[in-house]
């Protein structure tokens, strides 16, 4: 080992090729480095598969219908939704919190697990980051159309206007504008920086001039230079380190929209960590929902193995237990806090007119994921997929329960009401799913869904250091 150290770092290398070069270049699962780029870039370079069109055309249609409903909403008024006084926030804000929460698991996988050196994240992080971006786009739609007058949305920004007034920064809604827009920009940067070497791979493989120019522009002239990799790796690490406090702040700020108000059932200091845990949980459910069909359809079982899915399941289970704990703590605080309004809000949640939503949420989001305790479930893709769907449904209902049940019966019984969604509410929720799917399918078709350079960097080939057992040293 000492000799190898001197060879590499002392510069007195022997002339003949060192012994490890006699071996076949090892890569993941015994595949060569070239296989990695051929396999992943091939998905983007080959013809459009039939399943893609079968998914894309309906998704685009649903998106267009959702856009049409937004036009209907703005031309008629927000009364086309079921919202009224006292339930002025309903499906729209539920969808906002649901989608923004979905994004959080993407950042968890791409940034936090990167900082923790969890290498199993590598095959799924690109998909998870794309999911984050598209989920934030879907989320941003709802507060905007919820205003009813979309053309005044720019009043949210600190821009000078004819009235000479500025946004009021004591409102959590303004914090939300900054948190969500920062989250989108930083997630986009993180995703794009990760893509640069892979875009260079696609540029160098391009069969047509158009592809070479387009991918070449995206790759910014990347040459794989070691001097560049040095700054690149530092930037990637910094962006991961910046995304980690950012992701915690974003859902904390979203929860301030509720917690800073005085509505019983909203006004609690538990909300920021509770919302972050819920966001990560629902997002992990969505990652499973996306990755399981994807690996089957694209034939990526070798890259995204059962082991990856199993670890995801364990992480999901851990997040589920945190959410369950937070829900229990919330009930305990209401019982112990001594405020009769708070206590009533929780009694009403579990046994009032929305009990159906509450108990469905408990079943889908808190009970069903307990199946992940069993390895037999975690290693069966169909079972994991079913549970992930239940998690999505349950976590959507969780936000609905949190938002609507405190509002519909607050301090004055004379103001109590029961919210029911209209067909426009339902259509817009489905439209957001269509928008998400449309963007996601476009991503799958035109960009590498797995980080090619990072997968290569995980092979023993990438660590020719004396510390690597593959090269004769001690781990």
């Amino acid at each position: 080992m000492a000799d190898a150290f001197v060879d590499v770092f002392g510069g007195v290398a022997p002339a003949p090729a060192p012994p490890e070069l006699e071996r076949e270049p090892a890569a993941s699962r015994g595949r060569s480095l070239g296989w990695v780029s051929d396999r992943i870039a091939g998905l983007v370079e080959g013809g459009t598969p039939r399943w893609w069109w079968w998914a894309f055309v309906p998704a685009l249609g649903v998106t267009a219908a959702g856009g049409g409903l937004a036009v209907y909403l703005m031309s008629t008024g927000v009364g086309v939704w079921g919202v009224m006084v006292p339930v002025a926030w309903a499906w729209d804000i539920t969808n906002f919190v649901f989608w923004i929460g979905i994004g959080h698991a993407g950042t968890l996988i791409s940034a936090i697990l990167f900082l923790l050196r969890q290498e199993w994240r590598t095959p799924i992080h690109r998909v998870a980051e794309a999911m984050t971006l598209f989920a934030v786009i879907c989320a941003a739609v709802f507060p905007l159309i919820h205003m009813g007058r979309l053309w005044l949305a720019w009043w949210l920004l600190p821009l000078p206007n004819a009235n000479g007034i500025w946004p009021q920064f004591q409102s959590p809604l303004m914090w939300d504008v900054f948190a969500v827009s920062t989250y989108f920009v930083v997630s986009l940067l993180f995703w794009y920086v990760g893509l640069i070497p892979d875009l260079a791979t696609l540029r160098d493989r391009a069969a047509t001039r158009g592809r070479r120019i387009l991918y070449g522009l995206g790759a910014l002239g990347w040459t794989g230079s070691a001097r560049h990799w040095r700054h690149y790796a530092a930037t990637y690490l910094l962006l991961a380190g910046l995304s980690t406090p950012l992701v915690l702040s974003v859902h904390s700020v979203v929860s301030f929209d509720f917690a800073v108000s005085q509505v019983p059932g909203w006004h609690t200091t538990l909300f920021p960590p509770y919302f972050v845990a819920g966001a990560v949980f629902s997002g992990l459910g969505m990652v499973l929902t996306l990755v399981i069909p994807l690996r089957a359809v694209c034939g990526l079982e070798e890259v995204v193995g059962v082991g990856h899915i199993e670890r995801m399941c364990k992480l999901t289970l851990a997040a589920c237990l945190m959410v369950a704990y937070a829900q229990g703590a919330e009930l305990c605080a209401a019982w112990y806090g001594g405020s009769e309004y708070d206590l009533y809000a929780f009694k009403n949640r579990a046994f009032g007119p929305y009990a159906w939503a509450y108990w469905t949420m408990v079943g889908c989001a808190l009970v069903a994921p307990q199946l992940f305790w069993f390895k037999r479930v975690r290693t069966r893709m169909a079972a994991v997929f079913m549970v992930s769907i239940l998690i999505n449904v349950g976590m959507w209902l969780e936000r609905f329960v949190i938002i609507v049940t405190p509002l519909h019966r607050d301090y004055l019984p004379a103001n109590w009401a029961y919210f029911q969604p209209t067909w426009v509410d339902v259509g817009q929720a489905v439209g957001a799913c269509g928008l998400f799917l449309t963007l996601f399918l476009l991503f799958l078709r035109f960009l590498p869904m797995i980080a090619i350079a990072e997968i290569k960097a995980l092979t023993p080939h990438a660590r020719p250091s004396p510390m690597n057992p593959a090269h004769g040293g001690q781990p």
Partner: protein
Amino acid sequence: MITPDDPSRQPDTARRGHPSAPRQSPFHPATPASYGLLAQFDSAADTLRAAAMVRDAGYRHWDVHTPFPVRGMDAAMGLAPSRVGWWAAAGGALGFALGMWMVWWMNAHDYPIVVGGKPLFSPIPALPVAFELSILLAALGALGGMLWLNRMPRLHHPLFNSDRFKLATHDGFFLVIETADPAFAGDAARQLLRRAGSRHIEEVTD
């Protein structure tokens, strides 16, 4: 589909009409100038050893090109740690100051409105905005720093004139010594690269 290692490719025909082909102009001589020597290696381990040899031979204008970051390459090339972190730190500090200043200026100075009997400016409600702006500008600073230090984006690089260099983003390992290096003298660089174990050495023109 043409893959970089397709043996049927003819380098000269493939390069004709290439967007990165050197343009003819009065300022560029018709005979292309030499950019440097491009040496291919078989593995990351081999490249690492070669880099240590080139470093110790005293070259300064040279580089290694690999499909992924090779662990230990910075030390083997004698590179100092990246200074991108300072760019991010500067962006973060600027963002925080900007956020605090903006909230104070807008709500307490330019158009003061008392809301709920609260003070016109307090750092506490300004904190979320200042925090988000410090993250935002730190991230933009990190990206801007990387692009500046790497001199990116660029539309052309002399190495793109080499067809074999396309493997640098696939499974090829390359070391380049530039002609501009003061220590670059005739055959010595080529011999050094050969001695380092390169199986293919070619001259790249600009």
